[in-house]
């Protein structure tokens, strides 16, 4: 239990996927312009990431390791993620139209979100058991969402600021992200190794 809580806290706050591993920076910069789209993207990522991490664990330990095919790891993971996203999309469209309206347009974008593949790869590298892998996927997604929401909030305010012309758009967003990363470094003292 203690292990799981530690994984949760360290993945959400200390080793945040976006701010320390730079995973998922592209969607982070892309959809953080408005709070409403950030919410949609964030929840889709939590959803897919939890599933992706668990299924990648099963595939890796029950198929690839058993058959001694570890060198196919990358190609298999990316296919698992791509098919998973498709299945989730079809499933949500069929059984929950309101959810589909909220998340639908973000789902296809997730396949190329490096955070999902990164999550699967890190989960394998850290040698987690199944339960830990599920928690890891969920907390990585949650960490992504929290940072995305904070960023979207800041950027909505930024539109009212007088930013020097050359810094408008991407530069100021990157610098804001840098300051946010600096703030999150404060969490690194939270857990003593």
């Amino acid at each position, binding site marked *: 239990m203690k292990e799981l809580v530690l994984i949760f806290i360290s993945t959400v706050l200390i080793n945040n996927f976006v*701010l*320390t*591993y*730079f*995973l*998922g*920076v*592209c969607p982070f*910069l892309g959809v953080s312009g408005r709070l409403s789209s950030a919410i949609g993207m964030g929840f889709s990522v939590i959803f897919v990431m939890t599933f992706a991490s668990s299924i990648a664990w099963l595939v890796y330990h029950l198929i690839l390791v058993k058959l001694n095919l570890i*060198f*196919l*790891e*990358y*190609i298999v993971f*990316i*296919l698992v993620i*791509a098919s998973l996203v498709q299945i989730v999309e079809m499933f949500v469209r069929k059984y929950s139209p309101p959810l589909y309206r909220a998340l639908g347009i973000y789902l296809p974008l997730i*396949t*190329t*979100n*490096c955070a999902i*593949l*990164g999550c699967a*790869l*890190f989960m394998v*590298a850290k040698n987690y058991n199944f339960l830990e892998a599920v928690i890891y996927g969920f907390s990585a997604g949650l960490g992504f969402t929290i940072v995305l929401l904070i960023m979207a909030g800041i950027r909505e305010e930024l539109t009212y600021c007088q930013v020097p*012309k*050359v*810094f408008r758009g*991407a*530069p*100021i*967003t*990157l*610098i804001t*992200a*840098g*300051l946010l*990363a*600096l703030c999150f*470094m404060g969490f690194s003292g939270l857990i003593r190794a």
Partner: protein
Amino acid sequence: MGSRSFKEGLWTNHPIFRQLLGMCPTLAVTTTVLNGISMGLAVIFVLFFSSLVVSLLRKVVPYQVRIAVYTIIIATFVTIVDIFLKANFPQVSKALGPYVPLIIVNCIILGRCEAFASKNKLSLALLDALGMGVGFFWGLVALASVREILGQGTILGYRILPPSFNPLVVMILPPGAFLVLGSLVAIMNRLERVK
């Protein structure tokens, strides 16, 4: 036409500074110039050969599954790079760690395969891939140089600033990556405006 698609990637449509693509490796591995160079070369290799195969197969692959096929092709070349590094340059492979497999989801590669190589003939696709690849390469080296010089006072491991210089450690840490990249994009914007 040919030389234009090459120049696009090098400057006017630079993958990092103009299109903000491939952010994950750009920010993550540029802590030292050596890492930047190795990542840049790996991306050039994968981009070149994926574009080659995708352009050759452009009439064979059914539209609906094109992304899946491109991804498989890219993943194959990335695995080849990974195995090659592990076998011949174990130090580089350890330093880049999980960011080698993450080249698969680098949006530059899938983006160029989908937007350019799948619609153009072989020679053009290769020129475009080279342009984008070399553009990405110099972007990484530029970012890494700033970070290594300010953060450690060295370049490629050689000390160039006097020992009395107190390194700005934050440049090596994750926040520094965002701050330096933001400033470089701003400088690019400025240069573009002067033109």
